């Protein structure tokens, strides 16, 4: 193990999921991390939430180290992070940062907990005698806690802490404590950290307090709760003994309403932003409600259902069509108490324009983040890295990618050229350890591939970049946006000029074998023959392309074009001769319904930019956009606001009532249904512009060669959508970019960086060493039935046909024991878990 004092020391501010993930990635690549949070416990908002979309499981533990597992306690991460190279300081704030990257000085102030953790035996006497009762933050104020309390009850090893604002200094706890562990006079402890190599800032989102929206009665009507509150109600250790009862009278919940965009997308509150994740959280909560409450009736009142992620539309469809969740497009005006105690009246306007009053048992306010965060000065300090999700309310997957990219950015700045020496292990090699080839193969030269290659080269790793086409940049050729175009051009220049990167154009991988740390690939180089590359890690970034569709007469008339075409014509000035007087845009052409039932992520933004572009040039042009849900997540919401301000007309439609496009003599006629007028509408535009979305590039051969599964839409399927979004299920092989999920070029660049950071976990050390608990095979009694290969969730086992043996890759093996469980004759064993020991333990247990 590399001793802590020789590792670069980094500071991460914010111990939520982004901070913990960045900390673990950095610790795995050879850093020492101090992780600080002003809260009393680590874990952020996720410590309150059990189930997360889109699989309704938790799985936070999947971000734990996989290569150097023994550095970390392998347990449920919601119970706390316990890593040899990560120090967590809670109740700690950063006062200031000085110095330059590589050698910064950080001053911190830690508020004392009032409880000496060395003495406290967790007996709980103090909490019993404490006379102060305050709303329990952990349970979203649905229950009470004492002034001396456990901030996150399920965290192991966390001692109690004192809420100084609530404490009345009555001294009762100090008097009763049998260990004299309590000190009510403890003062804030400042400390200075010297020689900090760099800083990452991941403070998380500050949540909106719905008390500001008085028409919804939050804080007055007990059965109006926030979505976090509902997660706590559903928790078996939550505020109520029964998990399916409402706060006011503890009667069973049956009829539930979700109100979306509370505190978001609200100009009156200064919130011209979308909180991104709340739509999916509401869908998930509705699914959970159906799972836990028999006969639940669920209704989601929404403005646009933002099912922006790769698999989200199908998730929402399942909720709607299989579970019967009702989706009503309407912003609810107010919530009022009903005559029957506890019940709530929600009045809304239905699709036909009728005003309806309906009684619900429980109303859930989907609250997102507060508007306009204020960033501390030190964040702009050179060496302070912000994941771009900073203070946004992003889903887990994007937070993990963003924090991975931030960790990569930091590493590039702080790694000494001779980092191998720092990060490597000096202890002698044993028979199972194996050397690491410190080179990487990047398959694909689009934005994600370029950024992955440059990031790896920035870590002093030699990179081979293989591109099928004769030019780098992928879809950059079709990108019009000046900033994006420039940043990709810059990436290409940097890649071409980087001494550690070799670019193979017109080249293809035709064979790939091996294990993490040593893969062998055969590359076909156009007409120049073949080349063998040996590399320690592989990044697959084969990209995507504009989707083809024949929807709405696409391709039948040259006035029916795509957003890509319009963008180009606008940019090239092709429309200047004959500006269009009337334009109809149709969103989701050929997407968000089977067979391509996913949101392509880029089309809404492209359509809005094009529409605004048209309006800026020709304000008189009529623009009408038929849409299903405008997917302007995060701060791109401002585009939608601007478009509406410019007088662009938006007409929503449902898949069952799509607009239609027909040609009648010289005219194009678009007819549709306007739900506000509740009448048919018909337009004769000069131009119909279709948002046709994106598809992944065909990658069946790559998937087979690299053993990476594909989703039904032929995107690469990662190891875990939420927690390991850029890892393939095979250790040592990483996926990013448009081949993995629909995304913008800038997101692809970020994913490339995150993937490079994951790959560097392997490439950072000279040796891959087996961890304490890995599987071994007893070849003499092994029947080679290969059940273990099929059952291994990490792809860590393979048949060596030459030696006629089953082999274990010690880097990929996580010691889970699935192989040992399925092996009928214990020909595979897990170190430290030999059968006879387990049986002795069982015998003792059953007596």
């Amino acid at each position, binding site marked *: 193990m590399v001793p802590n004092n020789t590792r670069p020391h980094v500071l991460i501010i914010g111990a939520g999921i982004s901070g913990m993930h960045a900390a673990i990635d950095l610790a795995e690549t050879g850093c020492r991390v101090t992780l600080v949070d002003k809260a009393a416990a680590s874990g952020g908002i996720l410590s309150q939430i059990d189930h997360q979309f889109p699989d309704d499981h938790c799985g936070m533990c999947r971000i734990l180290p996989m290569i150097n597992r023994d550095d970390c306690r392998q347990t449920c991460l919601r119970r706390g992070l316990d890593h040899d190279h990560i120090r967590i300081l809670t109740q700690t704030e950063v006062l200031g940062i000085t110095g330059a990257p590589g050698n910064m000085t950080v001053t911190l102030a830690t508020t004392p907990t009032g409880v000496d953790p060395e003495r406290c035996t967790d007996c709980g006497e103090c909490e019993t005698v404490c006379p102060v009762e305050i709303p329990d933050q952990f349970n979203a104020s649905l229950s009470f806690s004492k002034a001396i309390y456990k901030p996150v009850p399920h965290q192991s090893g966390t001692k109690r802490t004192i809420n100084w604002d609530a404490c009345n200094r009555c001294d009762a706890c100090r008097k009763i404590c049998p260990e004299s562990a309590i000190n009510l006079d403890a003062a804030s402890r400042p400390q200075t950290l010297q020689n900090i190599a760099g800083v990452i800032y991941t403070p998380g989102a500050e949540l909106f307090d719905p008390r500001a929206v008085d028409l919804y009665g939050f804080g007055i009507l007990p059965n109006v709760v926030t979505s976090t509150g509902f997660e706590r109600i559903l928790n078996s250790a939550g505020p109520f003994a029964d998990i399916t009862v409402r706060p006011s009278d503890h009667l069973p919940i049956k009829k539930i309403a979700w109100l979306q965009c509370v505190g978001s997308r609200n100009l009156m509150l200064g919130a011209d932003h979308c909180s991104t994740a709340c739509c999916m959280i509401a869908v998930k909560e509705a699914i959970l409600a159906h799972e836990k409450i028999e006969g639940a009736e669920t209704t989601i009142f929404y403005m646009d259902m933002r099912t922006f992620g790769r698999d989200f539309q199908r998730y929402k469809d399942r909720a709607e069509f299989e579970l019967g969740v009702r989706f009503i497009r309407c912003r609810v005006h107010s919530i009022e108490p009903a005559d029957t105690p506890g019940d709530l009246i929600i009045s809304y306007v239905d699709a036909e324009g009728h005003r309806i009053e309906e009684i619900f048992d429980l109303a859930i306010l989907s609250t997102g983040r507060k508007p306009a965060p204020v960033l501390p000065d030190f964040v702009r300090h050179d060496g302070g890295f912000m994941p771009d999700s900073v203070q946004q309310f992003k889903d887990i997957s994007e937070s993990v990618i963003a924090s991975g990219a931030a960790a990569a950015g930091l590493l590039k700045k702080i790694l000494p050229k001779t980092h191998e020496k720092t990060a490597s292990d000096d202890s002698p090699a044993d028979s199972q350890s194996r050397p690491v080839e410190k080179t990487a193969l990047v398959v694909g030269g689009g934005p994600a591939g370029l950024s992955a290659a440059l990031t790896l080269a920035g870590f002093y790793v030699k990179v081979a970049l293989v591109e099928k086409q004769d030019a780098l940049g992928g879809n950059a050729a079709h990108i019009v946006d000046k900033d994006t175009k420039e940043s990709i051009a810059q990436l290409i220049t940097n890649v071409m000029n980087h001494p550690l990167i070799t670019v193979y154009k017109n080249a293809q991988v035709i064979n790939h074998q091996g294990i993490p740390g040593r893969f062998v690939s055969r590359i076909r180089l156009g007409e120049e023959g073949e080349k063998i590359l040996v590399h320690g890690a592989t990044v697959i970034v084969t990209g995507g392309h504009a989707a083809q569709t024949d929807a709405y007469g696409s391709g039948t008339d040259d006035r029916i074009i795509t957003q890509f075409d319009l963008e180009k014509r606008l940019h090239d000035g092709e429309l200047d001769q004959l500006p269009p007087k009337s334009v109809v845009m149709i969103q989701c052409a050929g997407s968000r319904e089977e067979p391509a039932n996913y949101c392509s992520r880029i089309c809404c933004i492209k359509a809005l930019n094009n529409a605004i572009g048209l309006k800026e040039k020709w304000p008189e042009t009529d623009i009408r956009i038929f849409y299903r849900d405008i997917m302007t997540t995060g701060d791109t919401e401002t585009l939608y606001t601007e478009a509406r301000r410019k007088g662009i007309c938006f007409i929503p439609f449902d898949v069952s009532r799509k607009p239609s496009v027909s040609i009648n003599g010289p005219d194009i006629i678009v007819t549709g249904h306007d739900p506000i007028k509740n009448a048919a509408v018909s337009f004769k535009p000069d131009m119909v512009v279709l948002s046709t979305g994106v598809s992944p590039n065909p990658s069946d051969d790559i998937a087979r060669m690299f053993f990476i599964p594909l989703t039904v839409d032929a995107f690469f399927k990662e190891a875990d959508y939420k927690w390991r979004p850029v890892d393939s299920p095979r250790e040592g092989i990483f996926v990013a970019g448009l081949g993995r999920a629909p995304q913008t070029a800038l997101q692809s660049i970020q994913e490339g960086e995150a993937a490079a950071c994951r790959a560097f976990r392997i490439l950072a050390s000279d040796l891959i060493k087996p961890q304490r608990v890995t599987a071994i095979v007893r070849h003499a*009694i092994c029947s*080679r*039935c290969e*059940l273990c290969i099929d059952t291994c969730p990490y792809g860590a086992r393979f048949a060596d046909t030459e030696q006629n043996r089953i082999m274990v890759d010690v880097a990929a093996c996580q010691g889970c024991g699935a192989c040992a469980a*399925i092996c*009928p*004759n214990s*020909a595979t064993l897990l170190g430290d878990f030999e059968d*006879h020991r387990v049986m002795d333990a069982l015998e003792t247990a059953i007596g």
Partner: protein
Amino acid sequence: MHPFVIIKTDGHLSNAVAGFLKKLLTEQIADAVLAAAPTPYSLLPMPTLFTAPDLIEKADPLAPAAPFNSARQAISVLKHDTGKRIALVLRPCEIRALIELAKLKQCSLDNTLLIGIECLGRMENSVYLESASQNPGLTQAFYEDPDLQKHICSSCAICTRFQPVHADISLCLVGMPANECIGLSAETEAGLSVLKQLGFETSEAPARREDQIHRLLDERKASKAALLSENKDKTDSIEKFQRYFADCLNCHNCRVACPVCYCRECVFLTDVFAHDPEVLLRRASKKGMVKLPADTTMFHMTRMAHIAHACVACGHCSSVCPSHIPVADVFIRVAEEIQKLYDYEPGRDLSEAIPLLVFDENTGNEGI
């Protein structure tokens, strides 16, 4: 309906079958044929690998005896593809076991011709030896005389899967008067092409077959239901289970006879169960005594856990038990419940995944 060929037996059933097998060699359809044949030293038919056409005349795969499930012998010649095409004449339970073993990578079926017997059952070895020594024409007599068929072993008497699944060609006997003719049914394209190569004319199967198959199936189902329900009463608690296996000698014959117990070395022979004397003394001291050999219940439970999904109900475990424990009855009963739970049928389809390799979060919610 599959293409059907009627072969005349002219009063010599065994010869007719051997004649068909001989053609496989002479017409170079197969490089070798594995079929049961009596040895020079005993009437008991043993799986025999034939390459010489004149010697295969001795083969008698329809003899109502099988000293063991031949799937294990089959895999010894199918361990890997030798480039030779091998025809195998097997009972349905043997084919089922072979398919399971192929899923477990114990053999390759790439270059084989599977000939399945429509099986009316086998006699226990001792019963067969006694009958065959008194009646040289036992094979044909068995298929003609329903009384003789009553002497089949108890597992065969409750077998409902007597028709081959996954064979290329089935040797059909139900509804066929054995002294006149038997049938060959082409179950696969490969099977049909072999029958065509051999110059057989295909026709429809005799109509009476359908009826008789159903009648036999109904009888078997009834006997099976009765036996399994009786068995459940005897084995549905751990105490009863222990009583059921009380006379077990830990000889492990049942495991040796089991065609789907495929381990190169059984875990009960490894160090896992090679207890130190301290362990036995500790166990004894808990209750004042311990029966030796130890781990009898553990052995049967473990074997059940390992093979219940794959049990092909051949009954050989009962046949080899020196203590005459009806081992198969309880295994068949539990296997049937497990297989139903996973909607899995061993030997049904080579591409059907072994249940424990498929994760479905809803499996098992309905309980056993």
